[in-house]
């Protein structure tokens, strides 16, 4: 854990390469590399257009709107925001313990969301890198390539994703902008028809999920040393945990371990997160840098998400996922698995667990109960924490006597991973780019490292025609020396305006 390469000694004397925006990650991101005349990396930074505006967006709004309103913060993980806001509003309405039916329906929704999110990430965004290699031809390196070369895998990805969306539709009431979770519980139970509809395909979903775990294990094993080394950093890891140490993504305490797997804190009440976590700022980034308070900003940064969750938990409650976890654990040879690419492996173990957990829940008659809502004494502050697909997600609201939000603090998963993503690109820059001529496959390696975290860099603005990839080379005076563009069709070339200008 070091700030090496975060800040160069004399940046004004260095060339600058900008990779903007990042591809196949949500929203806008930019990587800047400062090179000396011999193309040695002297500084590497990941810049992210931060989610600022979230808090302002909810200020002044009535608390009961929050579970619906916050879905609009992010078109990628709206259900995570929906559920965590519902948990925070539970606290606001004094619902210290929601009913078993409400909790299980919310869990079902959360498993569906996690399943579809992980399916999309692996089958659409990352399998091209893993199946074809990082230096595959750019035109081939995406989901279309997967469909052509591995049609069954691609089809399974589509149908896994679709199944997760159906779980969300049944539990949230609608495919998007659902209203299922409300302060103090949920507003609908599951009908027997709906349950049977979801049960119909669940065995197939489990089988495909199990197949995906076998696939990633095989991919990982084929070049084990390479995958274990690429973008690998030693980090602390933080995640939610159940009381007995089981894997948990909906409700539990917080556990943090150091790079050797030693406990930093355990079973921490999520409502006290402020005592354990701090958010640092850096002058060059809009996004904050959270860290574990007791370790300080230098050594206290951590990773969240599938890698942290699978490393941190003592066991899975479902048999196939637990079997997969043991194989994963063995890869660490006594230490937590620190390979950034192991995020993909961990993500698919979670996918399998979610499929198994969905099946278990579908056989639970509490889902059919009409005992859905509880209320208590209103509180001025509500905190919700859960494990979103990308990692720990925190919503913290304070309301006034009229029930309007006065203050909000949101720490989203990608923010928790901010420092870790920076560290990973530095590792890649140091090991794979230093001293070499920059080429698209080499630059893609940086993106591969970032994609491992599945960052959600912004929210769902997606108007057509906005997303080319441009690499800029600037001299020490800040003048543009050269640039390279990855066009919308994937072709690499010189920007048209430069061609026109001769």
């Amino acid at each position: 854990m070091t700030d090496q390469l975060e800040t160069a000694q004399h940046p004004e004397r260095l060339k600058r390469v900008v990779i903007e925006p990042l591809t196949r990650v949500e929203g806008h991101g930019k990587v800047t590399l400062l090179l000396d005349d011999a193309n040695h990396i002297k500084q590497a930074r990941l810049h992210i257009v931060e989610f600022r505006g979230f808090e302002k967006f909810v200020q002044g709004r009535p608390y009961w709107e929050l579970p619906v309103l916050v879905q609009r913060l992010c078109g990628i993980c709206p259900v995570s925001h929906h559920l965590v806001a519902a948990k925070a509003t539970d606290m606001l309405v004094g619902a210290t313990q929601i009913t078993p039916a409400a909790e299980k329906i919310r869990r079902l929704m959360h498993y569906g969301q996690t399943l579809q999110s992980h399916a999309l990430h692996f089958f659409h965004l990352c399998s091209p890198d893993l199946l074809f290699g990082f230096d595959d031809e750019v035109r081939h390196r995406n989901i279309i390539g997967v469909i052509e070369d591995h049609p069954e895998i691609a089809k399974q990805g589509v149908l896994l994703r679709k199944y997760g969306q159906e779980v969300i539709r049944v539990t949230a009431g609608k495919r998007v902008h659902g209203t299922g979770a409300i302060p103090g519980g949920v507003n609908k139970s599951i009908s027997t028809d709906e349950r049977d509809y979801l049960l119909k395909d669940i065995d197939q979903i489990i089988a495909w999920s199990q197949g995906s775990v076998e696939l990633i294990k095989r991919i990982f094993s084929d070049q084990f040393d390479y995958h274990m080394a690429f973008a690998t950093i030693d980090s602390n890891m933080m995640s939610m945990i159940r009381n007995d140490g089981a894997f948990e993504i909906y409700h539990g305490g917080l556990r943090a371990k150091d790079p050797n797997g030693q406990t930093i804190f355990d079973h921490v009440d999520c409502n006290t997160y402020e005592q354990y976590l701090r958010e640092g700022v850096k002058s060059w980034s809009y996004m904050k840098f959270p860290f574990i308070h007791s370790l300080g900003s230098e050594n206290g940064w951590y990773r969240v998400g599938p890698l942290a969750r699978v490393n941190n938990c003592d066991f899975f409650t479902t048999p196939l996922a637990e079997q997969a976890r043991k194989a994963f654990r063995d890869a660490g040879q006594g230490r937590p698995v620190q390979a950034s690419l192991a995020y993909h492996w961990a993500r698919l173990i979670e996918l399998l667990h979610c499929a198994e957990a969905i099946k278990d829940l579908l056989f639970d008659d509490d889902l059919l109960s009409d005992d859905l809502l509880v209320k208590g004494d209103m509180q001025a502050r509500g905190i919700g924490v859960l494990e979103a697909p990308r990692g720990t997600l925190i919503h913290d609201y304070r309301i006034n006597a009229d029930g309007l939000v006065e203050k909000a603090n949101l720490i989203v998963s990608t923010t928790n991973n901010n420092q870790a993503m920076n560290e990973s690109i530095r590792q890649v820059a140091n090991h794979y780019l230093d001293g070499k001529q920059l080429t698209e496959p080499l630059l893609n390696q940086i993106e591969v490292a970032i994609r491992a975290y599945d960052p959600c860099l912004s929210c769902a603005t997606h108007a057509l025609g906005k997303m080319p990839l441009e690499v800029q080379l600037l001299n020490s005076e800040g003048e543009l020396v050269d640039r390279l563009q990855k066009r919308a069709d994937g072709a690499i070339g010189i920007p048209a305006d430069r061609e026109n200008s001769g």
Partner: protein
Amino acid sequence: MTDESRTKPILVFAYGNPSRGDDALGPAMYELIEEQQQKAGLFTDVALLTDFQLQIEHATDLQQRQQVIFIDASLTASPPYEFHPVLPEQDLSYTTHAMSPGAVLYVYQQINRQPPPPAYMLSIRGYAFRLGEPISRRARAHLQAAFEFLMRGQVLNPE
């Protein structure tokens, strides 16, 4: 559990984030068409879907359709809107977690081993996409123009 919208021959897929300024043009058009269905009894052959953005699983929503209309905000369309056919394409745009209509059609074609239904794109010109902002005045005028185009044309009222 039946889903009536699955059997309708025309699919209108209007997408965008309702809370991001002009990105709400798609969902706003969804509401306008839905209002016509509910209050005026129009567009009875039209199934309406919305989402924040297009994704791979939306290829499954195209099954058994005779025609598909995608509706979205666009920063590059000529005002007030553009309407043109969409063909399956190996759209290799690295567009984050979102897909283009052509790429969704291509996924449909590949997983079903048959051509997708005829599809069109209605791109409504937008200008500002900030979180928490309403649809801009100019974009709202374009929305109205695009809606009138749908109302008077044959797109949603095939013979």
